[in-house]
């Protein structure tokens, strides 16, 4: 028998091509949403002569900075439909992409700490069930059974009065998700072009006909914007505005620990959410910093407050150490729902406004946005999430289900 060798270093998962002078479509932003959009454009619509332009490195923005929570327990029909579609795609994507990104359906708990929380939560469980989303209401004792390290005593400032629970929710390895999409895109012929920053757009009247970049001009018939926190900057270049405010959103991890935390716990009221990554770090996040910012960093008191909340809910975290904190730039809308659809510029489409919860929406954003770009009209799942809703007043107010960043 031959000697056992260590496996060869894996090949790179995608090429690094030079940009061509023209493409059928250009996606701006090589994060999760941009890559997913390119994947579904190629797979569902046969558009393979397309490019994904990324100004930095692949998936180095919010895709590298989120806390990887996946769930679909949103209140309104429109949101439940698109997020539940995303969750169903998450369930099949590892097989479809032939890449195990460790989607762990360990459940997500949303705690209730006040009578108002309890009423809102029970209402949301009812709404979820009607929409075919798995949801349960747990009393404090059931909360304790599912997550024994949670403090459910009533002597804390905001005692746990119960929780909603979605068993099919969970976490996944965010980097692997991006790599899985990128590899499949590359296989189908999509050009993923890193270090390529968009500096302007070429227009013929109201129609976009090309993209100016730091690596030359690229002619294209269609442009899809997937730039999260920088969406307003791109829209400005293209000559329109978006109802978006960009805020810093911070997260942190502890050093590695033995498995202590079996699920994902979120609290809107005391503003923290915690899970334990596959490797063992405790991963935490909370709400955005109040001010507008493009700095990929925030103020330390925001970290301090979420730590205080975490230690009160999980007393055993008191001796854990913060290993590192970081920030991303999130694109928030006033109704806490995304914008996926057409723009005032012909042949230019926008996918933005996912704010603090874009990771979970990645597959559905990609699928619906690809449909919108390919056909010129929204898919039925993203039709309600149009830019026009801010004029018609048909807002999708998800502040109840999305009050704390997630």
């Amino acid at each position: 028998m031959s000697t056992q060798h260590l496996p060869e270093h894996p090949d790179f998962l995608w090429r690094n091509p030079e940009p061509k002078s023209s493409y059928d479509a250009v996606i701006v932003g090589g994060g999760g949403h941009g890559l997913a959009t390119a994947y579904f454009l190629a797979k569902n619509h046969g558009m393979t002569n397309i490019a994904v332009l990324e100004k930095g490195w692949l998936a180095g923005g919010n895709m590298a900075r989120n806390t990887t929570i996946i769930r679909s327990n949103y209140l309104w029909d429109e949101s439940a439909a698109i997020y539940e579609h995303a969750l169903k795609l998450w369930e099949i994507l590892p097989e479809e992409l032939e890449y195990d990104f460790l989607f762990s359906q360990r459940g997500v708990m949303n705690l209730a700490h006040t009578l108002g929380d309890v009423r809102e939560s029970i209402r949301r469980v009812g709404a979820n069930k009607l929409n075919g989303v798995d949801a349960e209401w747990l009393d404090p004792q059931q909360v304790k059974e599912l997550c024994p390290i949670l403090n459910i005593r009533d002597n804390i400032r905001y005692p746990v009065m119960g929780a909603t629970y979605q068993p099919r929710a969970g976490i996944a390895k965010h980097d692997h998700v991006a790599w899985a999409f990128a590899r499949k895109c590359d296989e189908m012929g999509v050009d993923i072009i890193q270090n390529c920053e968009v500096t302007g757009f070429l227009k013929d009247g109201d129609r976009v006909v090309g993209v100016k970049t730091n690596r030359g001009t690229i002619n294209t018939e269609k442009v899809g914007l997937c730039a999260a926190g920088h969406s307003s900057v791109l829209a400005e270049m293209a000559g329109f505005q978006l109802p978006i405010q960009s805020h810093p959103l911070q997260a942190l991890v502890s050093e590695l620990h033995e498995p202590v935390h079996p699920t994902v716990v979120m609290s809107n009221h005391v503003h923290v959410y915690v899970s334990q990554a596959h490797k063992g770090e405790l991963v935490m996040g909370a709400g955005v910093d109040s001010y507008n910012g493009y700095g990929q960093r925030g103020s330390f008191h925001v970290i301090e407050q979420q730590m205080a909340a975490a230690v009160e809910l999980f007393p055993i975290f008191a001796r854990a150490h913060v290993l590192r904190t970081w920030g991303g730039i999130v694109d928030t809308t006033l109704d806490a729902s995304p914008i996926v659809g057409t723009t005032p510029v012909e042949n230019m489409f926008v996918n933005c406004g996912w704010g603090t919860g874009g990771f979970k929406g990645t597959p559905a954003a990609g699928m619906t946005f690809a449909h919108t770009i390919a056909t010129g009209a929204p898919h039925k799942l993203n039709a309600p999430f149009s830019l026009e809703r801010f004029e018609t007043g048909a807002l999708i107010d998800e502040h109840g289900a999305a009050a704390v960043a997630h």
Partner: protein
Amino acid sequence: MLLIPCPNCGPRDETEFHYGGQAHVPYPENPNELTDTEWSRYLFYRENPKGIFAERWVHSTGCRQWFNMLRDTVSYDIKSVYPMGSKRPDRSPDGAPESGTASTGPDSTTTGSAAPSTSSTSFPSTTAPEGATK
């Protein structure tokens, strides 16, 4: 954490303040005549510049007074504070409209010669501590 120069109380920690979003957004003069599009602009659209932003803050746990501030949204440097009701100190008096398009103008650190007698003030750069990230 930002160190915010309150015009009445001097430099104080950000935790004493609340944010009020974009400054210079007047209530429509003739609300009955607004179209849906105009209402939508007033209600939901705000500037979101990558650069200098004119914004409102209130010193909630201090003097409880509102004021305007110019801040860089990338470096978080505070460029100047100036009173509510006065014009942006970095725009020429007859130039840019109060609620114009997003700021892409030059990085100005003027002390606000355009502002009325209640002088606006420039302070040294105050940013979040370097150690706060990464």
